[in-house]
């Protein structure tokens, strides 16, 4: 499914169930309007988010990835976001060497009550991605098919 | 014992020559090897550090950079003011950004972070009062009642100085005790002496120093011991001013702790510079000798009594 041509870019969000997913709900309940690009994948805890999901998403053609969890100290599972913070920070710092703009990936903390903050996060991040434009691609799978073009 | 890069500081060449010479003499006697930092310059003291952190740190850092070539265990200085500037510079330079700015100003950038210590810290920690006490089994300063006075910056701010208890330092107390002196629990160890107000507001110095002298006198001290050129000057040189402000004549000699250690170790008088003190040190030393004489007399009496007892028994 491609993003809505011309209007949207492909932005994927990984949100923890307890805080940020609830924060996004709170933003909805408050009718805090947001850009429509973001697609949210719900996970139990930011600690569940292997940075490799972000890598996979970016290499699969996403233009931006947003991760959000409970604020440090507020993790529903006590420690998940502490680990997530270290892993995601390291991964974000790794991106430049891959030739991927680190601004295409952000991680942040939004609590279930912070509807307005969520609105701001989504709006700012979406603007940031639109400023960067579409991410560089590998081209379609069949173009790379070694049957037609290969280094062997 | 390791080698130390020695930073004398400007006071040592001026108002506190006796501190400087006694420090060198004591270090030599205790096997602390000092190598002067070649071409050392201002530590970045008072004028600079109040107006420009970068400049004052660069001044201090210049000396640290020069010291690096000496491959010393630490950079050490007798003067607490120099110590503060050198240590604050090191502390600030732990910030990479700041360090880069400082290094930009220097011909020779600071590479490593050599620890900075006071001479007092080296004597108290690296040499240790136990070693001193072992060298002086006969306790040469027995009977001398001293009030150790550290001044305000030898241990503070604690996160920078990292030495001793900043409210109740004991380094000098322990060293003095090792010499055999009777160390009084001087409560105003880290109180202000008035510092450089001696120039602008003599009345303040007279009042604050007077309070220190009063407390020492009340405890029955024969002398005050200091580790700071400025404190020593306020307490010693300005003792007359303090006396007139208090309406009470103080007569308390004010020693550098190195002078007393030197005295105990038998360092030649010429290097101790006792003659440079304003309040006659004899006052204290005579009192000490009197106590020692009294004690000897008592012991002699005891001995005699024993002999008599023995004789009688015989």
């Amino acid at each position, binding site marked *: 499914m491609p993003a809505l041509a011309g209007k949207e870019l492909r932005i994927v969000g990984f949100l923890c169930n307890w805080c940020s997913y609830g924060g996004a709900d709170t933003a909805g309940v408050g009718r805090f309007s947001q850009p429509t690009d973001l*697609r949210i994948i719900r996970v*139990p805890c930011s600690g569940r988010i292997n940075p490799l999901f972000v890598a996979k998403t970016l290499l699969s*053609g996403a233009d931006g990835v947003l991760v959000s969890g409970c604020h440090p100290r507020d993790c529903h599972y006590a420690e998940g976001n502490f680990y997530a913070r270290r892993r995601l920070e390291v991964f974000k710092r790794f991106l430049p060497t891959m030739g991927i703009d680190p601004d295409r990936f952000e991680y942040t903390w939004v609590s279930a009550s912070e509807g307005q903050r969520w609105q701001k996060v989504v709006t700012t991040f979406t603007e940031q991605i639109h400023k960067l434009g579409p991410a560089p691609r590998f081209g379609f799978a069949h173009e790379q098919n070694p049957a037609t073009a290969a280094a062997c | 014992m390791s080698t130390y890069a020695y930073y004398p500081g400007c006071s040592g060449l001026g108002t506190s020559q006796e501190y400087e010479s006694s420090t060198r003499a004591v270090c030599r006697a205790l096997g602390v090897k000092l190598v002067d930092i070649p071409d050392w310059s201002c530590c970045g003291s008072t004028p600079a550090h109040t107006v420009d952190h970068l400049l004052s740190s660069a001044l201090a850092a210049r000396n640290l950079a020069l010291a690096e070539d000496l491959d010393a265990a630490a950079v050490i200085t007798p003067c607490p003011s120099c110590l503060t500037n050198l240590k604050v510079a090191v502390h600030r330079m732990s910030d990479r950004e700041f360090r880069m700015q400082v290094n930009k100003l220097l011909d020779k950038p600071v590479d490593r972070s050599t620890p900075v210590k006071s001479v007092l810290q080296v004597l108290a920690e690296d040499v240790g009062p136990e070693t001193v006490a072992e060298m002086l089994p006969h306790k040469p300063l027995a009977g001398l009642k001293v009030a150790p006075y550290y001044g305000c910056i030898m241990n503070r701010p604690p996160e920078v100085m990292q030495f001793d208890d900043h*409210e109740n330092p004991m380094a000098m107390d322990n060293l003095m005790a090792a010499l055999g002196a009777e160390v009084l629990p001087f409560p105003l160890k880290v109180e202000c002496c008035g510092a450089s107000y001696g120039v602008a507001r003599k009345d303040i110095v007279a009042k604050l120093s007077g309070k220190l002298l009063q407390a020492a006198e009340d405890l029955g001290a024969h002398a005050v011991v200091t580790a700071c050129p400025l404190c020593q000057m306020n307490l010693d040189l300005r003792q007359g001013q303090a006396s007139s402000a208090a309406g009470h004549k103080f007569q308390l000699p004010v020693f550098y702790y190195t002078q007393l250690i030197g005295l105990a170790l038998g360092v030649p008088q010429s290097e101790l510079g006792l003659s440079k003190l304003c309040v006659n040190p004899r006052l204290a030393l005579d009192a000490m000798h009197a106590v020692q004489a009294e004690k000897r007399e008592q012991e002699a009496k005891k001995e005699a009594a024993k002999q008599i007892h023995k004789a009688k028994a015989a």
Partner: protein
Amino acid sequence: MKIGVFVCHCGSNIGGTVDAARVAEASREFPDVVFTSDTMYACSEPGQDGIIQAIKDNQLDGVVVSSCTPRMHEPTFRRTVERAGLNRFMFEMANIREHVSWIGKDKEANTNKAIELTGIAVEKLRRDQPLFAKQFDINKRVLVIGGGVAGIQAALDCADGDREVVLVERESTIGGKMAKLDKTFPTVDCSSCILGPKMVDVAQHPKIQLYAMAEVEEIGGYVGNYEVKIRRKAPYVNWDLCTGCGLCMEKCPSKKSTDRFNEQVGSTTAINIPFPQAIPKKAVIDPKFCIKLTKGKCGICAKICPTKAIVFDQREEIISESVGAIVAATGYDLFDISKYGEYGGGRLPDVITGLQYERLLSASGPTGGHVKRPSDGKEPKTIVFVQCVGSRDKSVDRPYCSGFCCMYTAKQAILTKDHIPDSSSYVFYMDIRSPGKMYDEFTRRAMEEYGTQYVRGRVSMIYPQGDKLMVRGADTLMGTQVEVEADLVVLAAGAEAAVGAPQLAEKLRISYDKYGFFMESHPKLRPVETNTAGVYLAGSCQGPKDIPASVAQGSAAAAKVLALFAKDKLENDPMISLVDMKRCVGCGKCVRVCPFGAIKEIDVRGEPKAEVIETVCQGCGLCTATCPQGAIQLSHFTDNQILAEVNALCQL
């Protein structure tokens, strides 16, 4: 697999900005989807009936509902599909209301987004497995750690609820800090008079097994089934024989022992019963001071003991207990006042802590209730109280308020006047914190009726002058420096976490803050629960607390335990991690990071492997993100499920 997709209009809530019918239509093109419909209110009774009917008519294996947030109606629809005979985990929800219709007005973009969110829900559902909760037995005994007032309350309430209680106390008597107090605020009633009966109840309760002089050594297991090892130290006295007569204390020649109960105000005998109301009232020998134990001779106590209870070669022992729940009530310890060099605590004998002062005030204390200062035994006439010593001070890493010092200082000022009518008291304070029933009135009485001089400001130093103590401080209301010539200075030492609290927390697998206080599950709504199921908190181990709050928490923790024990079987949430034994290489990374200790290393044919303790796992998935080879997978949120969601969204 046969999947049904139900798109909800939610009246106009979704329908207003999302073309629900088009979402349902587009969903027909998703793999495995065999039925779609759009419905006005999916959560309404007809809506749910429609889902059930469709499941039956089309033999659906799973259901996607595209409607509101799963945080709202996921449980509702889980029950719905369960009623239709499906496993309740064969269900996914796409949030097209909070995350779509309510936050954007562009109907085309919204509809497209709703279709995609439905798409990823379908992809996730295609990889869902039916999950089943595990039931397990529960051991209805409770361990209470700490015999202070909070622990006593928790133990008594549980025991009164007819549950067996194991109470472990580190000291030789229960009672904790409260037993050391003379009087309590704001009623000024005698502390031991109100605590004593409770202590006796503990001793006499048939359901309570008390281990004094004991500490928890090791905790294994999980909620409902904890295995606890308790290390019982040697008192060198056979407590079964000791009658607490106290004859040994009278004759013991070693009289310079540390008097822990009296906060080292004075000293005591090497064989000792801490105080007359001690529970258990049994003698204990301090091996550091006992002449027999240190030098090999003496043994007077053994000779004099009427029941021959003295056992010099007694050894400590390890006791195992099985319990189903644990209440931690380990209390607090006092801040070390010598950390303030300028106050001279520990150096100047007449600078003492508030708790030491309690012992001086207490009729059962070392001075028999006559206030005498430690240095020379003189009755002090001017007493200075300094508050916030080790509280609200970042420079000593104690930025928090200890909460009860304002009140006990006021109480001590009042008691001082009662004991020494011609005395005058000064209190240096930062703020008066007295929010509690009758609390502020009480501090007012200290000031107004008892003439205590309250000085708002910090003390900068205390130094001796002659036989007096000069207390120098600031009066910030007057804007001046003040110096008070005092005979005795009482420092209101703050509370800090009990010695060994972090180590105990690690045994309990609960978290603790940087000061060592145990972390509750939620600061407001779950104040006595922890993130480890079956472990509860009571009293000051969770943060400084006064007596009423500690007792309330003790009862609250007991209520939680009794509620847990009301069930005959416990059931776990089946969304837990599972290990693929074939792929696990036994590197132990998951064991290391699991916040709940829910993964253990086991031996499978000589190879180390990880195994999830299903009843302990909370389903956070940290292990899954940690395992490099993906051998441990969180059910319902597996790597492949999340990857399928990513793939559904991002196809180059």
